[in-house]
């Protein structure tokens, strides 16, 4: 059996379904505020490399992490490629393979432990009545942990590579 290409792997994932509609017109790149500031990021280039099966270049590079998630590209794509979502799908693959930028460990730990990606300090919580705000309700950390273990998300930290 023929090995599955990288673009096929992406297409089968949530978010990646539309990648093969791309005809490389470049509307995404010209709408991208990040591509205007740096040559390190270009959405058209990312899609092209994925379609050309340049898996290592994509997964080992830093480019996919520089998308600012503004959705300008996705909004304007004449082929309805869901570009921002495709980039999430590629990031999901990178993370499964243990290629994780450091800040994502922080996000992961925060959501797993506190149920929020930005921690609300005890100080901020104590100050609420003084400011005239109602007490914070408890977060549903227990339910969240059940979801994380059902999807396998909680195994993510096991894949941490030694920091380079």
């Amino acid at each position, binding site marked *: 059996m023929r090995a599955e290409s990288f673009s096929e792997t992406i297409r089968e994932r949530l978010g990646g379904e539309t990648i093969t509609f791309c005809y490389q017109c470049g509307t995404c790149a010209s709408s991208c*505020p990040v591509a205007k500031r740096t040559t390190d990021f270009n959405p058209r280039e990312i899609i092209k490399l994925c379609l050309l099966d340049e898996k290592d270049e994509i997964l080992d590079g830093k480019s996919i992490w520089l998308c*600012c998630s503004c959705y300008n590209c996705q909004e304007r794509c004449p082929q309805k490629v869901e570009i921002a979502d495709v980039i*999430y799908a590629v990031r999901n693959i990178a993370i499964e393979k243990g290629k994780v930028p450091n800040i994502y460990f922080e996000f992961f730990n925060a*959501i797993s432990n506190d149920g929020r990606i930005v921690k609300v300090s005890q100080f901020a919580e104590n100050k609420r009545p003084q400011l005239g705000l109602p007490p914070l*309700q408890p977060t*549903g950390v227990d339910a969240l942990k059940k979801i994380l273990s059902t999807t396998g*998300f909680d195994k993510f930290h096991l894949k941490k590579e030694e920091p380079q």
Partner: protein
Amino acid sequence: MMSYAIFLGCTIPARQPNYELSARKSLSKLGVKLVDIANMTCCCPPPVQSIDLKTSLAIASYNICLAEEANLDLLTLCSGCFESLAMANNMLKHDQKLKTKINKILAETGKEFHGTKEVKHFLQVLKDDIGLNQLEQNIVKPLTDLKIAPFYGCHALRPSELLQLDDPERPQILETLIKTLGGTSIEYQNKLKCCGGLLRGVSDDLALDLARDKLINVSNSGADCIATLCPFCFVALDIGQIQIRSKFQEIYDIPVLHYSELLALALGIAPEELAPRTHKIRIDKIINKIL
């Protein structure tokens, strides 16, 4: 009485009491009841979607299930929460297969997504549910002499197919709401471009470059202040100005206020009740103009 389940998210309770206070007090004055539901969790914004989309959808849907159980629509202040939750809500409502898949995960928590409720941004509640007339009638301090730069950010508008808040290329809702308060809405270059907020921590230099572009354009427009909707835009522009001062030796001194703060002031709520010291760029000159 109109009631909503309020979804606070993380950044607002952690760092922006100015947003929460002004929104709660304004809505209460306008006859809206907010219900704080227990056991809400993260909305799962882009940083979590980047780790795993399926998990993110399941967690976002779990929050919506809590609102369904309470028989209330969800009201969000943060545009990030709005995007994550409204996207999940509309994706699951329109994709039976996806809904089944997510419900299998949710079954572990004893929940089931039905798709019976709406996720609404604060602005939609103001314009569509309360209505501009009702809003106008309650204004006691019109923002007559104030030139305001509307700052949409990204996640209130895009992806528009799933969010349905306004036209993604020519939105009017924020301009309309500014004019309803008696203020003047100012046009500026690249109004709809990103603040760079989500690149903070990933590439701080790039993030600051994007924020700086926005501040240069607003500054050239002659606006007195910026009206934001999203806590991340607020940080990028407010704290961003302090960082730009030290990195580029440039001083913009443009106050950044959430739309809710402008609304609260126009409704006659006393500024000292709104935690004005949350702002790194002082807003005194704006308050003085309004009072």
